[in-house]
């Protein structure tokens, strides 16, 4: 299963079928067919991004054999985005009128460890 934010990079598909012996092999097939997905799923050194969860049926592959987790006929592999957020860690300043009127802005706070215990990286789309 391909989550909605990644479907634009997968021909708008919500799922795809492959024959594969492991999760890593299935993801390899997927990113070969949809090349743009690769940068959203993997870091430049080929590791699965920390904000991407991968499940085989109902099991998180982090608690199995990660990308070497074996698959069999009929298994469903789900790519699940980590969802988290919140207010700044420090007391935030009252926004200025200029801030309020500015449609886009950059942030300057520091990142911290993610809610699910994974260290933040540049994430997808970088």
């Amino acid at each position, binding site marked *: 299963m391909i989550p909605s934010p990644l479907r634009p990079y997968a021909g708008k598909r919500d799922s795809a079928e492959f024959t594969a012996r492991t999760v890593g092999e299935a993801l390899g097939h997927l990113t070969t067919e949809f090349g743009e997905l690769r940068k959203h799923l993997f870091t430049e050194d080929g590791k699965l991004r920390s904000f991407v969860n991968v499940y085989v049926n109902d099991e998180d592959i982090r608690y199995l054999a990660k990308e070497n987790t074996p698959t069999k006929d009929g298994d469903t592999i789900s790519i699940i985005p980590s969802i988290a957020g*919140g*207010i700044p860690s420090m007391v935030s300043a009252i926004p200025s009128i200029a801030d309020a009127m500015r449609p886009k802005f950059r942030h300057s*706070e*520091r990142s911290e460890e993610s*809610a699910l215990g994974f260290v933040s990286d540049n994430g997808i789309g970088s």
Partner: protein
Amino acid sequence: MADAMELWISGHIAEQIRAHGAETYPHECCGALLGRDSTAVPEIHRGKGAVASAREILQLFPLVNRRDDSPRNRFSVTPQDVLEAEKAAREHGLEVVGWYHSHPDHPARPSEYDRDHAWPWYSYIIVSVQNGAPQDMTSWRLNDDRAEFSSEGIEIRHRAAV
């Protein structure tokens, strides 16, 4: 001209988000936005040369904030919550098009933490709750390069768009 984005939402759903924020105050609330992208061009953008897109929110899927350690300034949902939201959306012929959460005693603006944890394409609604009372509500989309959010206009509609 940059793409213009607009979020269509009923007054009832907007009120549900505000009420959820008030209910969980001083903790953050969170939930999924179920809806679909519309092919209709928002009226205010017609004939102005902008590539406009509208997204309509048709249902909420309220969730429990799983950040027991710091629920006043953080929210997270589990992968199972995400799967449940996706399942609920499919059952109604919709998609999970975004997420909402509250900022207790803070403005309805995304934080750096929000940006670090956001995904492009999703809409992120933030409602500010000041002293227990819901205030401003805004919506944002993370740009493809993840460098910043773009504001997404919220239009309260009396009926669902086609």
